[in-house]
């Protein structure tokens, strides 16, 4: 299996995702430059975290115009797994591949720390191997992760089981006190209706090796592989 990791100018978790794909999971991996118009023969597309174009206009707003995004959209349309992490999630929102938008964190500060996540939907490209109710721990690192969507949109997310991850406490309880950024309904990650496009703010690539303090993130990448294998 081959991971394709898209590099926008300003991506900074691209090498981290590459490391997990190649060194931790022992899979093929390659970088895809944002000007490329060919995804080659990758099985999973990863939009990594970082500050594409410096996030100067609005997070992800310029990256969506990169030539490669048309290819990514086509790949998603054909059912291929596309996962966006942090800035990658923001890019997916800007392109419309996922619904909703981002506000600045309620604290107005960048926040970098471990959080707990509750898996709310099994079977998506990033939760294929997870059970509903499973609690995972991994870091967040963002200033703009306060996910928002209007009432109707939220109802649709619920109706179509598109809320993949919610911030929770260590026991899986979803509440105000376990929400680090103010996101609506503690949303940490969502998917499209089909489940092949997933975006999330937390960083599974940072929690994929015991030496870094946790391995809960590895299951997400393994999910993507399994999803791609059908």
């Amino acid at each position, binding site marked *: 299996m081959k991971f394709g990791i898209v590099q926008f100018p300003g991506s900074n978790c691209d090498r981290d995702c590459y*490391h997990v794909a190649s060194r931790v999971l022992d899979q093929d991996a390659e970088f895809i430059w944002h000007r490329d118009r060919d995804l080659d023969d990758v099985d999973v597309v990863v939009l990594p975290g970082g*500050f594409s174009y410096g996030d100067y206009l609005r997070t992800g707003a310029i990256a969506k115009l990169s030539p490669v995004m048309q290819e990514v959209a086509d790949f998603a349309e054909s059912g291929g797994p596309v996962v966006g992490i942090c800035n990658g999630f923001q890019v997916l929102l800007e392109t419309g591949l996922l619904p909703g938008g981002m506000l600045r964190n309620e604290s107005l500060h960048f926040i970098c720390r471990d959080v707990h996540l509750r898996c709310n939907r099994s079977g998506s490209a990033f939760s294929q191997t997870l059970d509903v109710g499973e609690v995972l721990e991994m870091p967040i690192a963002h200033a703009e992760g306060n996910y928002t969507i209007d009432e109707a949109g939220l109802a649709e997310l619920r109706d179509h089981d598109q809320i993949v991850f919610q911030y929770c406490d260590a026991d899986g309880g979803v509440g105000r006190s376990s929400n680090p950024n103010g996101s609506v309904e503690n949303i940490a990650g969502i998917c499209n209706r089909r489940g092949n496009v997933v975006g999330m703010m937390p960083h599974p690539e940072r929690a994929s090796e015991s030496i870094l303090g946790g391995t809960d993130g590895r299951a997400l990448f393994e999910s993507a592989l399994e999803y791609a294998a059908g």
Partner: protein
Amino acid sequence: MSEVDLKELALTGGLSEAEWDHLLETLGRDPTPAEVGVVSAMWSEHCSYKSSRVHLRKLPNEGASVVQGPGENAGAVDIGDGKAAVFKMESHNHPSYIEPYQGAATGIGGILRDVFTMGARPIGLLNSLRFGAPEFEKTPYLFQGVVDGIAGYGNCVGVPTVGGDVYFDDAYNQNILVNVFAVGVTDIDDIFYAEASGVGNPVFYVGAKTGRDGIHGATMASEEFSDEDEEKRPTVQVGDPFKEKLLIEACLDLMETDAIVGIQDMGAAGLTSSAVEMAERGEVGLRIDVDKVPAREPGMTAYEYLLSESQERMLVVVEEGREQEVSRVFDKWELEWAKVGEVIEDERFEVQEDGDTVVDLDVPLLTSAAPMYDRPTERPAYLDDLSTPDVSPADDLGEALSDLLNAPNITSKRRVYEQYDHMVGVGTVVRPGDGDAAVLRVPGTDSALAIAVDCNSRYCYVDPREGAKLAVAECARNLACVGAEPAGTTDCLNFGNPENPEIMWQFVEAVEGMADACATLNAPVVSGNVSLYNATGAGNIYPTPNVAMVGHFDGALDDGDGEGASTCGSAFRNAGDAVLLLGETDPSDVGASEYLKRQADDVGGAVPTLDLEREVAVQAAVRELVRSGTARSAHDCSEGGLGVALAESCIGTDGLGLDIDIEPGDRPDLELFAESPSRVVVSCPTEDIAEVVDVARSHDVPVMELGAVTGDGRLRWGGLLDVAVSDLRASFESGLDRLDEDLGE
């Protein structure tokens, strides 16, 4: 321009009358305005180190691990596997006081360029910050601005900020300190140097365009501060971390091609100093045509091009005929590039503007022949006014401990480091707040390095020589507590006005103390920075010789398979574990302590006594215990002494506590809060107590059992102390809340 006007320009630029006369005499003609700009920048304290250079030679800079000592953009040490750690620390004090966000942000940008200029991908940042008292009206604004600036820049470029320190004291009310450290890693054989060579080779300018920002930055950093300095805001540069990120990638890409002869970033004094320093190292000359320099706006003069400190720019000497490779790489990353000059044979710095030569100066005039001073020194009078440390016993040890944990200089810095991305790069093994030093995996390997920064400037105020030694000792001890051994040191020496003999005395004492300790601890100084004139009408800052070190583990780190060296954090791990103290407490070590400050509001006329041989032995013992995995936690005693160290080791756990089981002496408060150095608290399973004792004894280190980790979440010492760790944690986590309130959040 008349000679009177030129002189005025030179004096405004920071030259003294004597230096101006010296320049005229050496040149034998009137300089051009652009030359005045070049000379005043290159002769500034910031660029020339004219007051410090004679003393910096005393610092040890040789050792088996040293790959590159002082004189390059950064120092480099061998960390095994054919790899080098490239690192340096620098100050950005004056700009950060005037414009805290951009001042701090561009400090990060500058220190990163020093590292990747040498071919090393940056993998970690530290910062060491000094602010005025939290109650001082400007402190909340400056504090938040600096932290935001570091976060804004560091997070965007994708280099983790993994540690540092923050202190508050009245001495910094009008002159904050922002010192930043960066470390990168590369193959030893692939290090790049900032040396121009090969007559006829083209000189390329790459990165961002040049604007009028930052002109006179180097001069500003070489003068005392005054009230008007806030009007100098236009001399503060504006950073663009996105551009820096592209520049990192582009430079590392270009370095893969072997087309580069020499490369240097444009830091203080911009194009001028980068060109002159590259020429000097290569014993060649450089000819630059400012009309070719990519400009942000039209109409800039040679003077402005030469002194602009616009950020995210580099100068690269490329092998003749390989210009295409520069354009290929920099076009890909959408960065500016232009051929702006060439290497010439004569050791001259020549600048062309509109076809005219506007600068034509001997390179040595600007570098080796620049003024150098051995300034007079005098023991400061204030030292005689410091009192013998005296503090009456606290009524309630629990309250005194809680008070210390809430003190701004001890309290948790979580609210700071959680604003920094400290995990990007998937290499942060020991995170900020979790251990005494940060541990970073070396990318692509199973080995790791440790980094720490330290300086207790109150100690240095009371005794600069011993204070500097104590800073070095603590920094190396912090490495030992995670299992690492010093490979090399960098420093950032922040002092007041060197023209004041008392300040110069502090400087010389501190440098000599640092030299002594670095030699004994086998931690050669491979790079560094001096920041003088940290003074305002209100007085000079505390002498603050910040010390940062890179440590190695002598091989791979255990990644869970039981092979390689272990590392550990500072928090206790398991109920039932034994807690032991390596080293000894001397209750009289209370001078300059946080306890004395909090209880008696006094500084005191003595610092804790350091025995460097003991320090070496304690560190060796701790390192052995941590690497073997015998010690499950290790934490050194620093501000707040043993009491604070023990409390912190409890606070970092999920519900553990400690029963202290030692016989108290006359002054249990001093046993807890005296700041004797060379002490480390370790915990281990009870069956390993004998092993800890054996290792300590084999290094001739005193060791005693302090007690046992408990599962009940209380810190207890017989009938003297019994407090809930949750209460201590609440106190520890809230010591900086007042800074938020003052910002009205």
